[in-house]
């Protein structure tokens, strides 16, 4: 595989939502993740503030998933620094878990526990704060029914689903349950790795709206997107190409020229 020509790294744009007094919700500086041939992430820097909706664009293999994995603490970068709400990842297990509990990830494969009911799955988002007794009781008894009902209502699902096993739900219901589980976790940083990739266009835009609606002044969203035509509801877009940040600017200012540079002129899946 030919090595890509060295490219001048683009300096990060602090972004419109971050004021100078407020600490960024997520801050990556000079993050590098090695890969085969060329690095998967190459000196990536970015900062996201509270209330921001940020889309991550880029062709497949550009490093979107790696970036999100670094952002949620799954992947340790070889160099560079990471800060959540101004603090670096803690060393002690307990403090680190407290940090992780404030980061919610919407996985592409959802990662629901198939054998458990919707209610038990929603409660599993609270396990980080629950002790042993409640964790065990959750497997035997319906807990926190009111809170779960409310979470389901926020994603337009009825409370009658609470007792259903997750494996009995339809695809769209599963997606919504996964989002409701995030709401139960109540994270400050919401990360989503191509959540719309395998959905039909109508469902995709419905769910995207649902996710965008969850952003409040105290919650930020970083979502990797394979379809640039869905950018409408975002505040900002970051273009990633060959592990490097190509652009980082308000979503409204993204033009065809930016996208052509990002995708080499081949726009992926725009429109049905």
């Amino acid at each position: 595989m030919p090595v890509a020509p060295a490219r001048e790294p683009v300096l990060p744009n602090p972004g419109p939502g971050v004021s100078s007094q407020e600490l960024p919700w997520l801050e990556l500086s000079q993050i590098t993740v090695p890969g085969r041939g060329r690095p998967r992430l190459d000196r990536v820097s970015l900062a996201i503030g509270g209330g921001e909706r940020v889309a991550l664009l880029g062709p497949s293999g550009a490093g979107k998933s790696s970036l999100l994995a670094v952002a949620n603490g799954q992947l340790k970068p070889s160099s560079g620094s990471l800060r959540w709400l101004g603090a670096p990842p803690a060393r002690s297990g307990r403090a680190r878990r407290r940090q992780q509990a404030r980061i919610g990830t919407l996985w592409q494969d959802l990662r629901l526990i198939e054998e458990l009911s919707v209610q038990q799955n929603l409660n599993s988002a609270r396990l980080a704060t629950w002790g042993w007794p409640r964790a065990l009781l959750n497997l035997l008894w319906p807990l926190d029914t009111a809170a779960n009902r409310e979470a389901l209502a926020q994603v337009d699902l009825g409370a009658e689903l609470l007792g259903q096993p997750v494996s009995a739900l339809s695809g769209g219901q599963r997606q919504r349950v996964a989002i409701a589980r995030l709401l139960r976790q109540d994270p400050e940083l919401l990360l989503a790795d191509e959540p719309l990739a395998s959905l039909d266009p109508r469902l995709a835009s419905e769910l995207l709206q649902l996710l965008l609606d969850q952003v409040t002044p105290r919650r930020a969203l970083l979502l990797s997107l394979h379809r640039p035509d869905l950018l409408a509801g975002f505040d900002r877009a970051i273009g990633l190409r060959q592990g490097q940040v190509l652009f980082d600017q308000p979503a409204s200012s993204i033009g065809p020229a930016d996208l052509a540079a990002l995708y080499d002129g081949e726009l992926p899946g725009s429109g049905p």
Partner: protein
Amino acid sequence: MVAPALVLIPVLVLLPGLVHGGGIDLLKEFLQAAITPSLDPLVLGSAVSGLGVTVGIALLGWAASALLGLALALASSRQVWSSCCGQTWPANFLRRLLAVPRSIHELLWGLLLLQLIGLQPAVAIAAIAIPYAALVARVLSDQIDALPSGALAALRCAGVAAPQALVTALGPPLLPGLLSYGGYRLECALRSATLLGVFGLGGLGTELKLCLQSLEFHELWTGLWLLLAVMLLLETGLAGLRRRWLMPRRLGLGGLTFTPLGPESGAGTRGMGQTARPDDLGRRGREMVLALVVLGPLLVWLARAMGVQPLALLHWQPLPNLGGSSWASVLALPWPQLVGSTLLLTLVAAGLAVGLAPLLLLVIAPWPWARPLLQLTWALARLWPPPLSALLLLLLLKPGLVTAALALGFHNLGILGRLLLEASDDYQAPAEIALQGAGVGPRLALFYGRFSGLARSYLAYGAYRSDVMLRESVVVGLVGAAGLGTQLLESLSSFAWDQLLGLLVVYALLTLVGEDLSDRARLQLLAPA
């Protein structure tokens, strides 16, 4: 699938030469006694109390092995280790270590502990618990590692501590496999407890053997029918629980759920039709907790009643010193012949068991009334410990390898036959109906329509069972000329510790090689075509 039955041909050729005079009458008497068991209150009473001891040993041994096995399974699971501290080498190390207790049959453990500790109720229990715990650990840790890790990783990433995340993400998917395998192990424990009795470790087995040796067939059948009743009760009870708690069959022969890693467990829970009513999930868990709460005190009471003293296991009798001078006698043993006849014995027994089950099913296919008869025969075969069949066969046949193989094969035929029957009942075979519609006879339709679909998983289970037969070949050693088993029992009874040690090592190695071979065969059979 029926091809292994070809082994019948040489066996049938050899059989007439082995028959000795006078046996036929005794056998007739034995069979007649089946309908007229002794109902003498004295006989009944001693059979019932013997049965109580056997069931007690089985239950306590099983419970100990389940607890210990579960702990060891967690400790030897790669997924658990990598989730808790990011390393997997301790899991791999423990896995290797556990191969040792697993490779030695529970009878050998029993006899060894008997020599070391003396006759104690705890000895039989430990003899079952040690190898079973290692087996449970292996099967369960394989199952844990085969579970998808996504949900676990997601919980960990959301800041959940490792133990809670493991219980929530892996507990529920593991549960059906855990329970059905646990049930299967309990059935095995009852068979093992009876077997240990035959070798003098107490319980009904001891009485059965005495009755057989003194040709008291009527009294023998009293015990046998009682044992059969308990076994069938246990099997139906477990099957009922399995249905109630929506468990897969012990072995998803018919379905797509057979996992190559959990050999006898059919751990696949995915793909099973989920027909749970909405509130079923929590209810199942509550019922299980209740069952555990009841079981705990029951086991404690049982242990008290039987006078089990676990601490007695710590008081070892002094070992006779292993004089260096007698190592020559270890080397002088006819190793190639011993190993060769053990392997031959296993092959013949495996061929008989694996091949006869489908063959008999084919034979009876046109007659619906023969089915219950077959089920009864297989139930008797399962329950009848191989050494007792061997002794029974000795009434008719001369001692030797064929006799031993017949006894071992018959026992395993009972296990395989039941499994095949269950699986073939479960299996939806539209091809068979189509064939029948086209005027094909019931036997051929069964053969082409149903067996062709079952063959791979059945043979895979057969491969696993052959490995069990290799391990079990020691128990038929007492009929003589049956390879390592015979030699082992001889060395054991003559306190030749050095020989015994050598034999054990060779035996364990052989079992491990056999296990590896049968694993490979199974993986190959189950690999998607």
